């Protein structure tokens, strides 16, 4: 096993009385992607800020390629790139001017900077817009420029804080392709995300955090296996029927009735078999659903499964499900 590119040991960060990061530990091997998954306020961004030397840890230790983020911040800064949540580029400068500025601020020779800026603009499909002020860019273009800015000095370790939040599906898959390419060239990436799909697509390893603590750590495959790979949802005509449906579906897997009182959610490891079983069970009980859908679990489902409570994301307009009949839902707090 090679030396990890990023090592985090017992990291704690407090803001006054609030413990934002509460003793987390993980390693990221070189040339891999670690996905830090969690809802808003879980401590993802704080962790990234500590690892990128923007905040000092209160306890614990973190190193990037062997350099301690607290005691050797300049060494760490020279080898990391950061692309944050807000596309931190200057609106008034052109794309090219932004990259040249970062190039100069990372202390590269002027000639190298000019060439590198051109190369990145080309690679990220910004060559045509290179000499326009960023103010005129679309959201996706800004994100791509932001990522380019993080890459100007060819950092071997890259931190991406929710890189695709707010991007359209096309922009998202473009960015995923770029990230995968970087990793195949040897770059180590730590990326935070609220999307399970993104973690699954990109990450070799996923750390799920909630309230500043790690609640799960493993490969995306492990995680899915833990959560149940598929969710079957059935909508009934009324609450009484929903309760009956929940009862007849319970033997197939953990079920719950959503807050609307009429939707039953069944979590199963294996969709094909379970859907057939579910249909048979419902038919046998004489229950005709208004609709039935089969879907992949979301971060919300992962949370419900791992913590027994829903991820409290403000964007979450989904009905706060009432875990009824929540069979065998152990509150696992397995720090990895």
């Amino acid at each position, binding site marked *: 096993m090679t030396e990890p590119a990023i090592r985090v040991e017992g990291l704690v960060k407090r803001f006054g009385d609030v413990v934002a990061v509460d003793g987390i530990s993980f390693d990221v091997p070189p040339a891999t992607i670690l996905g830090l998954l969690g809802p808003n306020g879980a401590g993802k961004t704080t962790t990234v800020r500590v690892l990128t030397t923007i905040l000092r840890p209160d306890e614990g230790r973190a190193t990037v390629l062997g350099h301690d983020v607290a005691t050797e911040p300049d060494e760490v800064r020279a080898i990391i790139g950061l692309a944050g949540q807000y596309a*931190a580029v200057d609106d008034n400068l052109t794309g090219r001017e932004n990259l040249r500025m970062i190039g*100069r601020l990372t202390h590269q020779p002027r000639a190298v900077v000019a060439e590198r800026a051109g190369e990145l603009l080309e690679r990220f499909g910004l060559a045509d817009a290179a000499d326009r002020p960023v103010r005129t860019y679309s959201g996706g273009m800004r994100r791509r420029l932001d990522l380019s800015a993080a890459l100007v000095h060819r950092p071997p370790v890259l931190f991406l804080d929710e890189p695709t939040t707010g991007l359209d599906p096309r922009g998202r898959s473009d960015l995923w392709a770029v990230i995968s390419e970087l990793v195949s060239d040897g770059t180590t990436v730590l990326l935070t995300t609220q999307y399970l799909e993104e973690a699954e697509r990109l990450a070799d390893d996923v750390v799920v955090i909630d309230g500043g603590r790690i609640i799960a750590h493993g490969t995306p495959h492990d995680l899915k296996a833990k959560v149940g790979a598929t969710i079957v949802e059935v909508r009934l005509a009324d609450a009484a029927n929903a309760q009956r449906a929940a009862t007849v579906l319970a033997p197939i897997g953990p079920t719950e009735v959503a807050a609307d009182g009429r939707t039953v959610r069944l979590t199963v490891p294996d969709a094909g078999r379970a859907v057939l079983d579910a249909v048979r069970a419902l038919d046998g009980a004489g229950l005709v659903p208004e609709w039935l859908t089969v879907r992949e679990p979301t971060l919300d489902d992962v949370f419900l499964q791992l913590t027994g409570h829903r991820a409290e994301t403000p964007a979450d307009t989904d009905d706060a499900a009432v875990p009824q009949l929540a069979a065998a839902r152990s509150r696992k707090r397995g720090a990895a």
Partner: protein
Amino acid sequence: MTATTATPIPVPAPVEHRSKIAWAVSDALTIAQRNLIALFRVPTTLVFSTVQPVIFVLLFRYVFGGAINTPGVRYVDFLMAGIFVQTVTFGSVNTGVGLAEDLSKGLIERFRSLAMARSAVLAGRTLADSARNLLVIVLMLLVGFGVGFRVHTNPFALVAAIGVMLFFGFAMSWVMANVGLGTGSAEAAQAAAFPVMAILVFASNAFVPTTNMPGPLRAYADHQPVTAAVNAVRALTIGGPTAGRVLATLAWSFGIVAVFAPLAVRRYRRTA
């Protein structure tokens, strides 16, 4: 574990080797350049920082001026020194607003993740604001000449006066840098700056002599930095005892930088 093959860790781009101080200067100039590009590309700030003093010139020269008694000095000559100092003092609010904007847009966060000098974002901003001040001062001089202002000393004294104004404005920019980093939004920085500006600029001898102010106010107005700067600029443009007034202003300016620059850098290091 997956993909932990023997892919070599990539090496970051080579850096140019210079001393820490040389890089601090280079970084500050890079940031100053960035802020100046913005100034010329989005000239609204420049227009705003010019329109306001022009209104003050017209207001005091033609509306209030007739009622203000400045023995031995034409009011327009008395006024323009006040206008210049007011302009650079109000101009310093831009430093705070600009930094607050950089903070809220996440740019400061990016800069803090780079191995650049910790002083550069602030030094670059205050330098760029000094360059803007110079431009506005020249514009205000032209406006002043248009409404009858005359320099009664000599061109060298005028250049010295401009130097004094610029350095005083630079010092005030460091005060406002603290306000900008402390508030973190452009609107809040603006709101927080206004009372400070009012107490400094209006409770001074910038527009009226302090002789008729009530005792305690007069005691304050006679001994605060804006009055000192206005006195120095008046001495350099109208005449009279000069050296002591210029030295007093330089002392104030150095003192303000010595206190507020390290405070701002400290705040910059810690602001998340």
